[in-house]
């Protein structure tokens, strides 16, 4: 009974704290778009991590993935340039603000794919940082960790800039761009709290609320037996899926068809391997080469 009361007490405390924080942050959010606010000072006072809710607020306002006016992807502009144009300057300020040579820093860079693909919640890690980041990634409560080869890494991303400046950065991809997938968000919030506890940033209650825990699959590009297989559209048309996202797929199983809207002809898309369908095309119009699916699995030879 005492245990239950204790848990309820802590649950109440955390609910209250989360609601108060959210209320304060949401009030600051509008101000942060059009004027300057001291979010750093706010975080210091509360002794909480610095939350960068949105790095491209003008993009959010015009429902666009890219920056307004010059239409550039901010996540291809890092590490930025203090003497450059407004977005290069912004990128440089972001990197400077997050990194600090005097402290050990960590960052979680949260992405929601694009509007074309649906992603299983996953952490993406450059193999160069595998040893440091995989143990941290395991605490983030995500079902899938993808350690990818350095050759495919984009050096102009925020994560690359932070990791190369000794700020250990975990990149999260989940759901669909411009859409909110609440249960994925909930999983990540739990994960971030666990990560913070692990790092000693957050003093967890004596009996923390029970979180759903995943023992994540870890995919490494260098592994020969199990790896990520890409399925690209062999032709242009409308993709009509016949499987569900996160299904376990058999090798040769039909993932769907690509139909030509003018002739009605269709081409079937078959799985190249057996495994977990962790990425699935969400937006139906495809051109030759468009990504249809990514499957983590193995091939029968």
């Amino acid at each position: 009974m005492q245990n239950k009361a204790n848990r309820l007490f802590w649950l109440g405390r955390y609910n209250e704290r989360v609601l108060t924080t959210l209320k304060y942050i949401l009030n600051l959010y509008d101000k942060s778009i059009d004027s300057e606010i001291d979010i750093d000072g706010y975080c210091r006072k509360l002794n909480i991590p610095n939350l960068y809710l949105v790095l491209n607020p003008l993009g959010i306002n015009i429902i666009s993935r890219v920056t307004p006016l010059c239409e550039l992807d901010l996540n291809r502009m890092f590490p930025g340039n203090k003497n450059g144009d407004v977005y290069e300057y912004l990128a440089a300020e972001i990197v400077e603000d997050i990194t600090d040579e005097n402290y050990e820093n960590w960052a979680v860079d949260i992405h929601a794919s694009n509007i074309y693909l649906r992603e299983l919640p996953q952490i993406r890690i450059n193999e160069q940082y595998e040893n440091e980041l995989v143990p941290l990634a395991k605490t983030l409560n995500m079902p899938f960790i993808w350690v990818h080869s350095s050759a495919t890494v984009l050096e102009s991303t925020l994560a690359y800039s932070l990791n190369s400046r000794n700020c250990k950065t975990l990149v999260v991809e989940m759901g669909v761009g411009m859409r909110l997938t609440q249960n994925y968000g909930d999983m990540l919030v739990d994960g971030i709290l666990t990560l913070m506890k692990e790092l000693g940033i957050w003093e967890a209650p004596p009996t923390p609320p029970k979180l759903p825990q995943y023992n994540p699959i870890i995919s490494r590009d260098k592994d020969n037996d199990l790896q990520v297989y890409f399925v690209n559209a062999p032709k242009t048309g409308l993709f009509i899926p016949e499987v569900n996202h996160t299904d376990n797929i058999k090798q040769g199983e039909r993932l769907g068809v690509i139909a030509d809207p003018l002739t009605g002809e269709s081409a079937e898309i078959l799985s190249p391997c057996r495994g977990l369908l962790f990425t699935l095309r969400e937006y139906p119009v495809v051109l030759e080469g468009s990504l249809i699916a990514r499957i983590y699995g193995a091939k029968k030879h």
Partner: protein
Amino acid sequence: MKTIYRENLKIPEYVFGEKSDNPENSVAIVGALRGNEVQQTFICASLVRILTELETNAKIRGYIKIFPCVNRYSMNVGKRFWASDNTDINRMFPGFCEGETKQRVADEVFEKVKNFKYGIQLASFYLPGEFMPHVRIIKTAFTDTNEAFDFGLPNVFVAEPSPFDTATLNYNWQIWNTSAYSLYSKTTEKIDIFSADIIINSILTFLSKNGIIKYDIATITAKTENTIYYKKDLVNVVSPCGGILIHKATSGEKIMKEQVLAEIIDPLSGNIKAVVYAPKTGQIFYTHTSNLISEHEIVYRII
């Protein structure tokens, strides 16, 4: 490549001269990789017209391929980047034939333009603005900076590669042993005949000096003094505030330190919010062209 409701996507090319075993006198010229590079397409189209005439008069000595517009898919619908997902083909090189759509497009382009001795790209800057016509080299071990003088343009700009440069056509050309040059005209979306002629003449000069065409250089470009500039030689003048930008100076203009370059007007009251002064004596290399400006945008770059 087939598109869903439009005609098939093709990359038109024009070939002049015969391909030989000697790649020393071969050149690939690439126009619009982005859908708003109208001036760059126009320059290539003009070159096609001139080279057609030269070929008729047997004055082609080497092998030339011109791709006036790679990205018709975007240009025809008024989009700057790839029309369906707003990505930039010039961040996809060298491409991948089994990859995503734009990687395949980049791969197809790259397969066509690689293995030439020289590669010339009619490029545009990522910011909307006007330039002094110049040749730009992304500095690697592969391209000879001095060869850039063969264009006869007074300004040669040498840039250290940034992370995003590694996926551009210019950089990858060099990795594949092509001497690569990016030529910047004054404008991008609007045609400026005068600066287009400067670039056209500079390319003809380059082709002539390298034995690719036979042409009297003296008739096309007077001898000019060449200056190499590096990033450190460029001074950015950024806007101290947002507002309506009224220029008092334009690209190419020689300026004195403390000279008034622009005024920024409050868009609601009409009052002058800020005056932009020249931080040094020099010449305006780049000018921001939009009349609306935000804080910390580059208004001018001065050499």
